[in-house]
């Protein structure tokens, strides 16, 4: 039984970790919400984003937070190009093809990274790497607190974009009724690519906020993508609020699981939630009914 004094710090830490998870899940849920496909290349693209942040820091001395001005736009362009140039073309409009194409992309990206970057684990040392914020006696690492608020801001910006812009309206229209949206003049290919690009840009944001407290190697995406899938299922596929809340819940469950069940069994709770949601609420906490 853990010391009661560490429960509150552990919950707070779980919330900040959950913020990081939510950031990764936001892009996944956006892509699912519009394209109705699970992007198997999500982890590999996160890894690319982390490498971009790493090399900007090491080669040019650019701070990971300053890299927010560079990496997310670059990742958006990459996502747009991938959807327009490869995924859209190779899928021939069939969802099962898209699954296979994204799976293939993830294998190619990971192996190319292994070839070019080697398997070394790399980290960046920033002036704030060891800084902490003290809340209720808990020392929360500064980079994780920043990531937590970054997740809140990113979710809010996505919500604003989806509900108050023409692009958001076009995305929602396509997600709801593809043919109808096309009939009123929405360029489906362009909007699909914009959605994929935005999803990948979210990974760019996640990469900038994650690297100060984590590491990068060619396999790093795998550790996050399974959690992100669980969050998307828990929060409701296509729901930003769901991804945010789901991320925070998973972060806290993981922390509590580790504390009460032991660190090596801590993730049991996450997958228990995954199974329970699928049985009792398949649409997730905030997902629309099919």
């Amino acid at each position, binding site marked *: 039984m853990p010391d009661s004094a560490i429960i509150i*710090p552990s919950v707070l*830490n779980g919330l900040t970790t959950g913020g990081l998870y939510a950031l990764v899940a936001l892009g996944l849920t956006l892509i699912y919400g519009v394209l109705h496909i699970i992007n198997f290349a999500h982890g590999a693209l996160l890894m690319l984003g982390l490498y971009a942040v790493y090399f900007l820091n090491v080669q040019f001395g650019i701070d990971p937070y300053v890299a927010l001005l560079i990496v997310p736009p670059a990742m958006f362009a990459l996502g747009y190009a991938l959807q327009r140039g490869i995924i859209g073309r190779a899928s021939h409009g069939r969802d099962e093809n898209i699954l296979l194409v994204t799976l293939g992309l993830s294998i190619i990206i990971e192996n190319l990274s292994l070839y070019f970057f080697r398997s070394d684990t790399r980290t960046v040392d920033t002036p704030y790497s060891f800084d902490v914020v003290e809340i209720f006696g808990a020392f929360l690492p500064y980079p994780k607190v920043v990531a937590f608020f970054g997740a809140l801001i990113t979710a809010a910006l996505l919500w604003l974009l989806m509900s108050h812009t023409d692009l958001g309206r076009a995305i929602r229209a396509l997600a709801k009724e593809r043919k109808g949206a096309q009939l009123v003049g929405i360029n489906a290919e362009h909007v699909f690519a914009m959605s994929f690009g935005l999803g990948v840009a979210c990974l760019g944001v996640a990469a900038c906020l994650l690297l100060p407290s984590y*590491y990068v190697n060619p*396999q790093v995406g795998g550790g996050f993508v399974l959690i992100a899938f669980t969050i998307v299922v828990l929060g409701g596929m296509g729901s930003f609020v769901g991804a945010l809340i789901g991320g925070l819940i998973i972060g806290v469950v993981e922390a509590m699981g580790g504390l009460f069940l032991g660190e*090596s069994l*801590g993730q049991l709770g996450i997958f228990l939630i995954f199974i329970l949601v699928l049985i009792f609420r398949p649409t997730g906490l905030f997902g629309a009914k099919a």
Partner: protein
Amino acid sequence: MADTKTTKTNSSGIRRREFLATGAAALAVGVTGFPAVLRAQAAPVKIGLIHPVSGFIAFSGSQCRAGAELAIADINAAGGIKSMGGAMIEAMLADSQGKPDIGAAEVTKMTEAGVHGLVAGYSSAISLATSQEAAKTNTPHVVDVGVSDSIVSRGLSNTFRFGPGYGKVAEMAVANLDTINKAAGSPAKTAMIVHEESLFGTGTAELLSKQLPGIGIEVVDVIKHANPTRDFTNIALQIKSKKPDLIIPANYYNEYVLLARTLRQQKIEAMGIYSVLGGAASNLQFVGEFPEAAEMIMDCNHWYDPKSDVALARRKAAEAAGLVYTYEVFLAYNAVAFLADAIERAGSTDQDAINAAMASSTWDNHGMPYGPTKMVNGQNEGAQPVNTQVQKGEIEVIYPEEFASAETVFPMTM
């Protein structure tokens, strides 16, 4: 006219009888005189290198492969296997992906492809699987890093380990800790062990838990964690609440880095971080990237003899090739060199001869603090870990004294 023609023909070369005689002689020389050279060129010695170059321990696996390839390059540059007419060593590469079953499958493929010896497989679990599979065909197998004692306790006549197992490491870690602690007036009385969940971490933790009370250090908790673990705050909080004098990590590189960072972030004050086979504690990359977090950390681990010219020259060459000189590099290098020395002495690729040569090896050109090789049931009895400590950004050997390059600083100041 005909004679003239004949004369002309003969004047430009040799007569028919001479030609036939020379041809026969050349044929005879070809059969008896040249084959040694031809065989050496046509039949290189094939050494299989099976490492996890992808998957969760890919960094360590890649380092092993790089070290093994350096050894092969050096041996070939020095003339190959001289007792076999300068036969070149040819590497056969395979990726176990961090999975024992895939490692074993790669052994099968290699034996079918005519491999003459194997160096594998970095982790204990993979090494157990690869050596067992190799034993079916009696293929000589050298374990480069795997530390589980089960690897050399199964009576496999083809399996050899050049480095120490975790039994020896734990025994020396405890003995050296006792000496270090007593020299400081025995300030450390409690410890917490944080270990990864596979065979290496679990086995090491079990041995330490049994042996530490014998030197007056109570183990207040043992925390096992998964690979990968994304966040170590919970573990750091538990350490903080139990206030151990010593923190003893036994885990792989990625997790070690995160743990060390988190300990610093959570402002945990202990008398010492005393790793046993710590994945990053004796790693120059970690020390280079996080000098503050690494400073003063002690480790009982594989390390080269800092007073050996051979070891220093190899480190220089590896770093010139762009490698971070981690223990994986020099252990895999030595595993290949040890196998090559046995093939040299066997003078053939006969499996029994190579295994017998490894069993009777007294090889000492390794630059490790081991002395001449002495195999007992496949284990090099002279193999031992040393204690290192990160001091001013460099990894110094602090114990045993005969290999020490610096004095121990304990208790540490965090």
